[in-house]
């Protein structure tokens, strides 16, 4: 194989990251590159990610793809990569540095704002809603919660966000959180689950309590798709994880070939529900 590309992601076990990995592997096969993919257990483990990054640099790969958990922490290591002549492509979240040649990413704030708009539409513009998110301090956690909550606050004064709780993306924990929220707020109209694990937990909690609350999810996966099909989830925001992985590797190869890259590769986000889930452009960005 011609190239060795190391991807350091924010996570590994979650389906979202597995979809990114799948996209990266696909590009790897296409461009004849060996692609490795790893990430820490939780999005809080910034230092573990630094260890992974420095091991990756020590391996002397042709290029590195990096999804930063913290926008600044990796600066010295990125410099080290640059000094070693290893091109770096950022993905999923950017860093405060001009070392990465490009960033393949989704605008999470805008995506969550879209979820807020859809929520407002589905519950008729008033009532109580809640958010079950995955992480209180990670970039995606903050962006999605802020994107949703701020949009509601600024555009929908009759809607109140009564509770924002965090379940670490763990389905079981998110289930319990959802149940508590529903039981504490019998008149709740809607819940936004801010990543796949949270969204599934919300669906689960809703089912266990036989609630009819409106649920909006995030990302995809077989269970979320099924929930949308059976109506328990109204719809969800999806990014294009496969595209992110694919574009990252593709950009790395382009950089290695000396091509110039755009500053940002926007991989986009989409709203999907029962009506458009089978549409080719949506089906292409969903994963199982």
């Amino acid at each position, binding site marked *: 194989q011609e190239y060795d590309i190391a991807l350091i992601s924010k996570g590994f*076990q*979650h*389906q979202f990251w*597995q979809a990114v990995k799948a996209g990266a592997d696909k590009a790897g096969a296409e461009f004849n590159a060996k692609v490795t993919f790893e990430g820490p*257990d939780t999005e809080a483990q910034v230092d573990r990610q630094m260890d992974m990054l420095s091991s990756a640099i020590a391996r002397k790969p042709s290029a590195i793809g990096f999804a930063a958990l913290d926008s600044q922490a990796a600066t010295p290591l990125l410099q080290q990569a640059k000094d070693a002549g290893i091109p770096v492509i950022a993905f999923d979240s950017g860093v405060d540095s001009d070392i990465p040649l490009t960033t393949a990413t989704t605008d999470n704030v805008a995506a969550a704002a879209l979820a807020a708009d859809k929520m407002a539409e589905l519950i008729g513009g008033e009532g109580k809603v809640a958010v079950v998110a995955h992480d*209180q301090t990670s970039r995606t956690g903050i962006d999605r919660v802020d994107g949703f909550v701020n949009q509601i606050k600024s555009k929908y004064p009759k809607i109140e966000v*009564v*509770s*924002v*709780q*965090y379940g670490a993306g*763990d*389905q*079981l924990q998110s*289930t*319990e*959180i959802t*149940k*508590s*929220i529903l*039981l*504490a707020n*019998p008149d709740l109209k809607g819940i936004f689950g801010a990543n796949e694990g949270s969204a*599934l937990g919300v669906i*689960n909690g809703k*089912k*266990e*309590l036989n609630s009819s609350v409106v649920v909006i999810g995030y990302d995809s*996966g*077989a*269970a979320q798709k*099924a929930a949308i099909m059976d109506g328990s989830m109204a719809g969800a925001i999806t990014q294009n994880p496969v595209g992110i992985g694919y574009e990252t590797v593709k950009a790395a190869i382009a950089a290695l070939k000396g091509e110039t890259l755009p500053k940002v590769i926007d991989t986009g986000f989409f709203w999907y529900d029962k009506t458009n889930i089978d549409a080719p452009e949506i089906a292409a960005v969903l994963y*199982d």
Partner: protein
Amino acid sequence: MATTDTAAKPGLLAGIRGSGAYHKLLAFSGLIALLVVFSLASPNFLQTANILAILQATSVNGVLAIAATLVIITGGIDLSVGTLMTFCAVVAGVILTYWGLPLPFGILGAILAGAASGLVSGAVIAKLKVPPFITTLGMMLILKGLSLVISGTKPIYFNGTPDFNQISLGSIVGSVIPVMPIPNGVLILFAVAVIASFVLTRTALGRYTFALGSNEEAVRLSGVNVDRWKIAVYASAGAVCGIAGLLIASRLNSAQPALGQGYELDAIAAVVIGGTSLSGGRGTVLGTLIGALIISVLANGLRILSVAQEWQTVVTGLIIIVAVYADILRRRKL
């Protein structure tokens, strides 16, 4: 840990003798205090649906904590309960969904996988003398990796086995007494507790469990096959983790291979809050059940009150210490 000794004295007696009803009643005090506070603070707390939600939320951690109790009474520790649970769930997924076999095979498979893994841990501990902490830490990682490997790093759904969901969510009680829709998961928790308690107090296995934790060398010099009983305890704990795996998979209608790490701490916390000493030789299943309930009530109550998450964490930490301290004070007075 020397300080635990004095604290836990009566627990043992209660456990071994099956008597001491007075003690047992009093041990609820911390739990009851929490229930009272939350009931006063929120009208939504003491409602059937919420009580059921709390019980349901206790089921997985409760079963795991019972597994941990068995091992801790021998003076050991089991850090692998969380990932073993996941592994068993994945095994059930592979059997039911990938192989398409009928439900009983899945149930049996999960429990056997748990027992087999416990057997391996037990054998490494008993025969190779690797400390339980290290053995089960290693097993925790091995099982975590294997779950990802055999599931293909993705969740396995049980859509082909519609009954699977009923293991935890169905309600046999509810179908007979409609006003008491106690989910089966909760029944299973109580069944496991009753059986574990019976095994611990009434059978040879249970007696050796306490004896091993009390003075392993003396047991060995009494001509007892210490290794065999130790392995049996770990295997039983593993089987119980298998049940926990079924419960969680059934609740989520899927085997989530990434889940499980971190659950061991909650399980061990429930055991210790329940008065079982980490130095072994004493402990009760009832105490563990109360410990697990304290943890769930706390989580549920604080969420119902919509306490900010960071403060939830602080308050949980404080209350765990205070609850155990209150228990120590109470025991000292007796």
